């Protein structure tokens, strides 16, 4: 049954599958919540109803995304127990309170104010409504902070001791939360979420500009998104570099896997492309640039970079996946940088809304953030192997005593259900994004009229109309 796969492999597949689907939604909703907050602030400040209409346009998209994030997240909070019981027993005393704080400070805040943000403008008025939007945006950021503290602790554990039943016992919570990789991972991931949103919003703006370059709403969203792309991408690349230096210090084996290095070098080359082969302990077909690896990783062309052979075979992460996912992430980062710079140039030339090639490029880059986020996530998580708590608790010792069949069948159930539900969800999101942002009588309106705006029937019509564009 299940191709003779072990419970461990099936459980890892299941976790990778469910967390990959889950991560896509918060990566979008973190940025989208802040975007909505900015839109509403601009509406209140400039008294320009265009911003309110844009708020309503993206609010629906946020609601669908957020809903999928919630339901796929609940699965995660129980999967630690069902499939990774030994991990939960041992690491629960450290990881658990961090996730407990995430629920108490973030999930309740988001959920409590989401209803008001989505349905309550008419009931509470613009000021309280704006407060609710701010709370939802704040909640998404607090949530990211706690979950990344927990994840970073698994990568670079600190501030703990162990007891006689093998549990990790907290000693210093500040050291646990602010563990060595946490600040880098937090900033890198939150910026990634902002960039994911920027490129998604930019693509929607570009799509509508390609059909009608005079559409004011499309112009506003495209312009805002391109500012974000142009300003944040360079910062993100800088932060990513710092994150890499931090990883080299604390998890050098992960760096060796990402770089496809098996041998230890002084003045290591940068392998641009190749196929790492863990069995043969070499990277086939390597295309290398001498010394550049050491220069990038250690900022010194002659620095020594350890290769995977420096570790015993059973302590090495597999190289193939991190090697490729890392290159995908970096490649997309460079493309983002180029698009951002191009948009600055077009803005300077005053062709931001006319340059169809820029619009086409931005449209193509729409999914880039999602792919980059997942690729980066795979790099760091696969690079942590063969441990769940780095260097201390092996993945193979983290499992529950559950039958491989149970895990296999539930994996199939998750695959089937997720493809149906989230497949449909993504389709609905795309259809919502293809709605033409209506530029109407916003100069005539002088206040928040119908907060919620559109009734379901009209919305259906609108999305149906938009759907023909495909």
């Amino acid at each position, binding site marked *: 049954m299940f191709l003779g796969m072990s419970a461990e492999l099936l459980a890892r597949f299941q976790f990778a599958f469910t967390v990959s689907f889950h991560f896509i939604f918060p990566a979008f909703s973190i940025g989208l919540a802040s975007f909505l907050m900015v839109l509403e602030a601009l509406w209140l400040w400039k008294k320009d109803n265009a911003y309110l209409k844009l708020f*309503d346009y993206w609010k*629906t998209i946020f*609601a*669908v995304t957020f*809903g*999928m994030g*919630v*339901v796929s997240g*609940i699965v995660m*909070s*129980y999967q630690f*127990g*069902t499939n990774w*019981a*030994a991990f*939960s027993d041992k690491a*629960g*005393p450290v*990881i*658990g*309170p961090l*996730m*407990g704080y995430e*629920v*108490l*400070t973030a*999930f*309740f805040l*988001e*959920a*409590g*104010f989401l*209803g*008001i943000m*989505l*349905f*309550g403008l008419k009931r509470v008025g613009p000021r309280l409504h704006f407060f609710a939007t701010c709370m939802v945006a704040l909640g998404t950021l607090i949530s990211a902070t706690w979950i990344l503290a927990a994840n970073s602790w698994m990568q670079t554990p600190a501030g703990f001791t162990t*007891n006689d*039943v093998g*549990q990790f016992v*907290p000693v210093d919570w500040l050291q646990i939360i602010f563990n060595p990789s946490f600040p880098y991972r937090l900033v890198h991931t939150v910026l990634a979420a902002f960039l994911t949103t920027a490129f998604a919003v930019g693509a929607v703006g570009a799509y509508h500009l390609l059909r009608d370059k005079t559409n004011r709403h499309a112009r506003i969203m495209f312009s805002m998104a391109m500012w974000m792309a142009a300003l944040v991408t360079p910062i993100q690349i800088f932060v990513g570099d710092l994150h890499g230096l931090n990883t080299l210090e604390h998890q050098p084996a992960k760096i060796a896997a990402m770089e496809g290095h098996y041998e230890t070098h002084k003045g290591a080359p940068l392998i641009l492309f190749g196929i790492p082969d863990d069995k043969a302990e070499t990277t086939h077909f390597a295309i290398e640039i001498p010394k550049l690896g050491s220069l990038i990783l250690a900022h010194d062309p002659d620095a020594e970079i350890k290769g995977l052979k420096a570790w015993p075979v059973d302590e090495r992460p597999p190289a193939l996946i991190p090697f490729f996912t890392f290159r995908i992430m970096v490649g997309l980062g460079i493309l983002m940088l180029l698009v951002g710079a191009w948009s600055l140039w077009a803005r300077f030339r005053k062709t931001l809304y006319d340059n169809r090639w820029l619009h086409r490029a931005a449209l193509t880059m729409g999914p880039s953030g999602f792919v980059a986020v997942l690729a980066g996530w795979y790099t760091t998580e696969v690079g942590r192997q063969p441990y769940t708590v780095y260097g201390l608790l092996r993945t193979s010792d983290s499992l*529950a*005593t*559950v*039958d491989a069949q*149970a895990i296999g069948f*539930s994996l199939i*159930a998750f695959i089937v259900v*997720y493809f149906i*539900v989230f497949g*449909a*969800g993504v389709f*609905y999101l795309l259809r919502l994004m293809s709605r033409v942002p209506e530029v109407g009588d916003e100069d005539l309106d002088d206040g928040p009229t119908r907060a*919620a*705006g559109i*009734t*379901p029937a009209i*919305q*259906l019509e609108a999305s*149906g109309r938009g759907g023909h564009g495909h």
Partner: protein
Amino acid sequence: MVIDLATIWAGLIAFAVLAYVVLDGFDLGVGILFPLFPDARDRDVMTNSIAPVWDGNETWLVLGGGGLMAVFPLAYATVLPALYVPIILMLLGLVFRGVAFEFRFRTKRWKPLWEWGFCLGSLVAALAQGIALGALVQGIEIADRQYAGGWWDWLTPFSLLTGVGLAVGYALLGATWLNLKTHGELQAKARRIAMVAGVATVGLIGVVSLWTPFLEPIYFQRWFAWPTAFFSALVPLLVALCAFGLWHGLTIDRHLQPFLCALGLFILSFVGIGISFYPYIVPGALTFHEAAAPDESLSFLLFGAAFLIPIILAYTGYAYWVFRGKVDPEEGYH
């Protein structure tokens, strides 16, 4: 009884689970009742009555799960593998239920699919939670800090009965919620359904209560030995009082009273389970002191919980207050 960190946390986790059961109980109940309301406008009103609050309600389930891992990691690590199948079914049910709020407005052609998903998802989640409860009550096997039974051990006549019991109870909560939040024919129908569900719920509470003491000697002793026998006399009496209040409120067309009495039935049943369990978290196998995380974990999270839970209750209460009163059928969804 010494009040220490583990005892306080046992109380807080119990509170989170109870909050989850009564809050998500009524909105899962609304989902379970969907097939009885085929009219499209009725269904819009029904989902609109819970759309602003369901996410907050479900967050208590995350607190129950995440909190259990934080403060009773050994219980989390043994109970969830033991209840593997019902837990996975519950999660999948909640996926379908949760996305339906948005998805049913996003498509005409596939709307029936998401409405069935909403209903069956709610029903499966309710059954699975009830089955999980029954399986926990009948006990699970633990050896060497790991679950030691098979992956079908949870399936017994008793656990199936508690599954049905909880689903019917949620339907009662849902019906009394609709009685509170709607008017006209929809409300009248909800009231009639609440009467049937009320009788069925009280009957099932009775059967489960009579069956439980014979599952394990400790339950028998707990319920029929002094001083706890005092409670075993008091709890049924209060159940009878709530049942009367429920029936009376429905017959004279009160709107809030039946909902409160249905909540009362749930709270009393929960207290009854608490009396049976104490001081165990997994009956007969693991006390909550044995399952507790080190004090450093308990005190760190308690510090935050003591501050944050009152604040959470305040703004959750505010969110309910904002959407108080009958649902306006004319109010658009978004």
